């Protein structure tokens, strides 16, 4: 049976892993290589690296971190932030990434999704969505690391993107990010109704109970967590053991 994935998310700024609240106000929390290895050894199912200042430098700068991770961490690596073209994607895959996560560029040019999926396969292309709740049933898509609004309805956008070839969705709640107040369950449920690709829930985890609620009340495929790991509130091993004891399918 397919297992629920516990993904460790590392937002990277230059040489550091950082963490913010509502995708801003970032603080340095550690070294990407040290943290990655720790989470790998602790049982992380995947590692997700996001370059949070890529738009400032107009490119993704995580190749070296990915190379290092690929050399000794034998689990899937996803990289995002500032990816603009299929050349960028190829560079990251050749560095050791297995999947790429893209937001800003595909909002501006949705055809990039199809172009990339045709060359690399849909399973390689993760649509990253930063969703901010506007009112009941309506979330607005943000770009540029949660800095810029687009006026686009998330529910319309995810359907279009999956039709174009996105193989997976990384769904981040801008409202919940870093707050430890639980995931945006409505958002996750609404998007699940619309698309048939795996959804990775991101933003808001503060406890194992938040994860249990998310898995029980939505059909997401994976959980991406950051705050609880980087601030040593929970460990992956601890999370998985508890999920296993409660009957959830996890890889131990």
């Amino acid at each position, binding site marked *: *049976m*397919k*297992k629920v*994935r516990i993904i460790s998310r590392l937002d990277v700024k230059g040489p550091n892993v950082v963490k913010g609240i509502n995708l801003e106000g970032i603080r340095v929390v550690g070294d990407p290589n040290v943290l990655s290895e720790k989470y*790998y050894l602790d049982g992380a*199912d995947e590692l997700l690296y996001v370059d949070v200042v890529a738009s400032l430098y107009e490119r993704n700068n995580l190749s070296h971190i990915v*190379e290092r991770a*690929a*050399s*000794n961490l*034998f*689990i*899937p690596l996803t990289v995002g932030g500032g990816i603009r073209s299929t050349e960028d994607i*190829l560079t990251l*895959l*050749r*560095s*050791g*990434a*297995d*999947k790429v996560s893209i937001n800003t560029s595909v909002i501006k040019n949705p055809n990039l999704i199809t172009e990339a999926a*045709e*060359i*690399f*396969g*849909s*399973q*390689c292309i993760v649509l990253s969505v930063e969703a901010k709740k506007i009112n009941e049933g309506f979330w607005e898509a943000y770009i540029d690391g949660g800095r810029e609004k687009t006026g686009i309805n998330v529910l319309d956008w995810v359907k279009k993107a999956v039709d174009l070839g996105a*193989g*997976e969705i990384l769904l981040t709640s801008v409202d919940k990010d870093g707050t430890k107040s639980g995931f945006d369950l409505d958002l996750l449920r609404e998007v699940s109704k619309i698309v*048939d*690709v*795996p959804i990775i829930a991101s933003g808001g985890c503060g406890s194992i109970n938040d994860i249990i609620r998310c898995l029980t009340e939505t059909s997401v*495929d*994976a959980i991406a967590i950051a705050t609880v790991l980087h601030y040593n509130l929970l460990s992956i091993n601890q999370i998985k053991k508890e999920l296993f004891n409660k009957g959830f399918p996890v*890889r131990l």
Partner: protein
Amino acid sequence: MKTEVGIVDIGLGNIKSVIHLLIKLNFTVRLISSISDLDGLSVIILPGVGAFGDASKKLFSTKLFDGLKQFVSKGGFLLGICLGMQLLFESSQEFGFHKGLGFIEGKVNKFDISLVKQVPHIGWNNVNFNSKEDSFRKLVNNSDFYFVHSYYVLTKEKDFVIATCNYNGFEFPAAVRKGNVFGFQFHPEKSGAAGIKLLKQFFVLVGVKNE
């Protein structure tokens, strides 16, 4: 002296992980991008990310298509991973009709979303090894391995299916072996400890020393 293992590199995706895992297992690596790179090797890995059509075309244009067939007929061992395993079969329908290496009878089909509920099949799933390759079964039977694919192989040659995986009630071949040709649908180089154990055993099976 370390044994050299070949990895087919047709420029389409992440092969770094396979390279690094082989190095970790104490082999040296030769990247293969044309037919002349095949000389003197006894084991070759055909990794795979991307689309069947692109990969198939690249294998043709580099003459590796025939090169790999000759390599196997002369006794070389070939391991296809993910797309690489699919390329071992006869054909695929991904973005059009494309020809595979044809070592094993069968076709590559897209998962039927009405059966499996979600495509691609992404994530960790347990693999059931059968007694056709008992050493794998004894080592890692029922362990979780990492899958990331939208297509699976459909073959009448059940004798060559050495492991299966169940995805939401749909069973498909997870590993195959026909003579010198092996295939893993999952990524052993992305499957943590289980993958490392399996690959180590693969090299033991094919008689390649790693010291």
